[in-house]
C-alpha cells in the first residue's frame, strides 16, 4: 500500500513538474456538445509560459466521432510563415508547421481555428488528439521545448463553453506585399525564382496566381496557380511579373514586378510594328493603284 501511495504521489509530482514551464498546444473549448445545430468553432491555441519560441508543428488526429470539418481558418495566427499550412488530409489528419521570425511569447494565442459543420447526436468520446507536437525555443540552436497537449471531447454534459464562428464579411483585399526575385546555388540550379507571401486578416489567404508577360499587359486565362518559391519561365528577366494573392472570400491583391532587363520598345512591339508597316504600305499601294486607275479613266474619257 505504501509503495502504491508513494508511486501515485511521485507520478503526481512528476506530472506537475513536467507541465510546469512547458509550452502547450490546446483545443479551446476542449469539450463540445454531442449535438449542435450550427457551425461550431474550435481554436487550436499555443501558450509558451513566458518563454520565447519560434517554431511549432503538430498533427491533429481526428477520430471517427469527429463532426465533419467545414474549413480551417488561420487569418490571425501567431504564425507568420507557414511551412505547412493547416489543412485536412484524408478527413483524418490536420498537419501543421509554422514559424515566428524573431520569436513569439504568449498565452492562449490562436494558431488556427477549426470550423465544424452542423452535426446530429453523437456518442460521448474523444474527437481529436494532438500528436507529434514540437515547439522550438528562439535560442539560435533549435532547442526543443517540452509540450503539453489536451484532447477535444464530445460530451452530453449541458454547460458548454462553445464558440460560434464569426460570420466573415470580408470585402478587403489581402495586404500589400513585395515579391522578390532571386537565385541561389541551393535552389533550381541557380536559376531565377520569385518568392512571395502576404496576410489577409479577415478570411485568410486562399492561393496565389502568377503570369509573366514581356509587354506588361495582363492576359486573361494566362494565370497559373503557384506556390512560393516559383521558378520563373523567363530566365532573362525581361518580363513583367504579376502576382495575385487571393483570399478565401475571393478578394484579390495584384502586385506588378517590373523586369530587371526590360526589352526595348522595338523588341516588345515587333509584331505591332510589322502590322503597322504592312498597313501603311497597303494604304500607299492602294493609293497609287487607285490613282493610276483614275488617271487611266480620265485619259480614256
Amino acid at each position: 500500500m505504501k509503495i502504491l501511495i508513494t508511486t501515485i504521489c511521485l507520478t503526481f509530482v512528476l506530472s506537475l513538474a513536467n507541465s510546469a514551464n512547458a509550452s502547450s498546444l490546446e483545443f479551446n473549448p476542449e469539450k463540445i456538445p454531442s449535438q449542435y445545430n450550427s457551425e461550431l468553432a474550435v481554436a487550436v491555441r499555443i501558450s509558451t509560459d513566458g518563454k520565447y519560441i519560434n517554431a511549432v508543428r503538430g498533427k491533429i488526429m481526428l477520430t471517427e466521432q469527429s463532426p465533419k470539418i467545414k474549413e480551417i481558418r488561420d487569418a490571425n495566427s501567431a504564425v507568420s510563415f507557414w511551412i505547412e499550412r493547416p489543412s485536412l488530409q484524408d478527413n483524418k489528419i490536420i498537419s501543421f508547421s509554422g514559424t515566428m521570425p524573431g520569436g513569439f511569447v504568449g498565452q492562449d494565442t490562436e494558431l488556427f481555428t477549426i470550423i465544424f459543420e452542423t452535426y446530429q447526436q453523437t456518442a460521448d468520446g474523444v474527437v481529436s488528439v494532438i500528436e507529434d507536437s514540437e515547439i522550438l525555443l528562439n535560442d539560435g540552436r533549435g532547442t526543443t521545448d517540452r509540450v503539453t497537449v489536451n484532447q477535444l471531447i464530445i460530451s452530453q454534459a449541458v454547460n458548454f463553453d462553445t464558440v460560434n464562428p464569426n460570420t466573415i464579411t470580408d470585402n478587403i483585399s489581402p495586404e500589400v506585399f513585395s515579391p522578390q526575385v532571386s537565385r541561389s546555388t541551393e535552389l533550381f540550379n541557380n536559376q531565377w525564382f520569385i518568392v512571395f507571401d502576404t496576410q489577409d486578416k479577415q478570411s485568410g489567404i486562399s492561393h496565389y496566381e502568377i503570369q509573366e508577360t514581356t509587354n506588361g499587359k495582363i492576359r486573361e486565362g494566362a494565370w497559373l496557380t503557384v506556390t512560393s518559391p516559383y521558378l520563373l519561365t523567363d530566365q532573362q528577366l525581361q518580363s513583367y511579373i504579376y502576382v495575385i494573392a487571393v483570399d478565401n472570400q475571393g478578394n484579390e491583391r495584384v502586385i506588378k514586378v517590373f523586369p530587371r532587363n526590360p526589352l526595348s520598345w522595338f523588341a516588345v512591339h515587333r509584331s505591332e510594328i510589322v502590322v503597322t508597316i504592312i498597313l501603311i504600305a497597303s494604304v500607299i499601294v492602294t493609293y497609287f493603284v487607285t490613282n493610276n486607275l483614275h488617271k487611266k479613266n480620265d485619259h480614256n474619257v
Partner: protein
Amino acid sequence: MESKRPKNVYHLIIAASFVLTAVFFGNYLIRDSIAQMTDFDEVDITAVVPAPGSGGGSGSSAVGPSTTVTLSGFTAPSSRVIILKDGQIFNTFYSNENGAFAVNLNNQSAGVYNFGLYFQDQRGVTSNIIPLQINTMSLVPVNIPNILIPPTLTLSPTVVNAGNTLIAEGYTAPGATVFLTNSASTNSLISLIADSAGKFSGQIPAGFRLGEFTITAKSRMATGQESLPSRNVIYRVIGVDEVVPESPVAGVGLVTNFPSCVDPNRNGRVNLIDFSIMLFWYEKPNPPVAIDCNSDGVVNLKDFSILMYFWTG
C-alpha cells in the same frame, strides 16, 4: 471633280496612320524609359495594380477601416531602427541623438499582427528582435511606450587561450547598465555602463575550462526598465599552448551576424528568400549541406528555428 475626292480621303488616311503610329510608339518609348530609370540590381521594383477580375477571385480590392499603432522607446543614439510586420520589413527610421524613438504606423486594418523591432548599431551589427503581437480588432489606436530594444554584442577574440580575457563590446541606450552573463560560470555576471554614444565595452575572463561558451547581454535603464537578452555570442576556450587562429572560425562569434546556412542566397539578409529556399527542401532527401544548419542530413523544424532566430526581414 470626281477624281479629287478619293485623293483627299487617301491623304487623310495616310496622315492619320502616321499620327497614330507616332502616338503609339511615343507612348511606349516614354513608358520604357521610365522603367529603365529604376535600379533593379538590388531591389525588385513592384507596384500595386487594380485587380483585373480575371484571376481566381472576384476582382475586388477594397480597403477596410483602419487604426494607428504607436511605438516608442529607447535604443542606441542615431541608430537605424527596423520594424517588421508579420516578418517583413515594414518601416525603418533613426533614433534621435539621445537614443529615443517614436513612430506612428498608420492605416493598420483590423487584425492580429506580429510586429518585431530591432536596431542596427553603427558597426552594422543587429540586435535581437523584440516580438510584439498587436491586436487591432477593435480599431482603437494602440500605443506601446517605453520599449527598450536589446543591446548588440560582439566578442573579440572569439577563440581564446585558457586564462586569457575577451573584450565584449556593444551598443544600447545611453547611460543604461548592461549585464553580461557567461555560460562558463553560473555566477559570472559583469555589469558595464553605456556611454553617451550608447557604447559599452569591458573585459571578461575566459576562465580555464576548455570548450564553447555563450555570453549574452541585457540592458537596464535608470527607470528600472529591462530589455530582452541580446543575441547569444559564442566563444571557444582552447589550451594554453594552442595557437589561436587569425581568421574567423566557423560556429563562434558574431562576425557576420549570422551563420551562412541561414542566408543561402548570400545577400547579407535573412528573409523570405532564405525561408523559401529552406521551404523547398523541407524534409526532402539529400538537401544541400549549406542550408542544413544543424548538419543532421535533413532540413527540418530545427533548421527553420535557427533561421527564425537570425531573421532580419
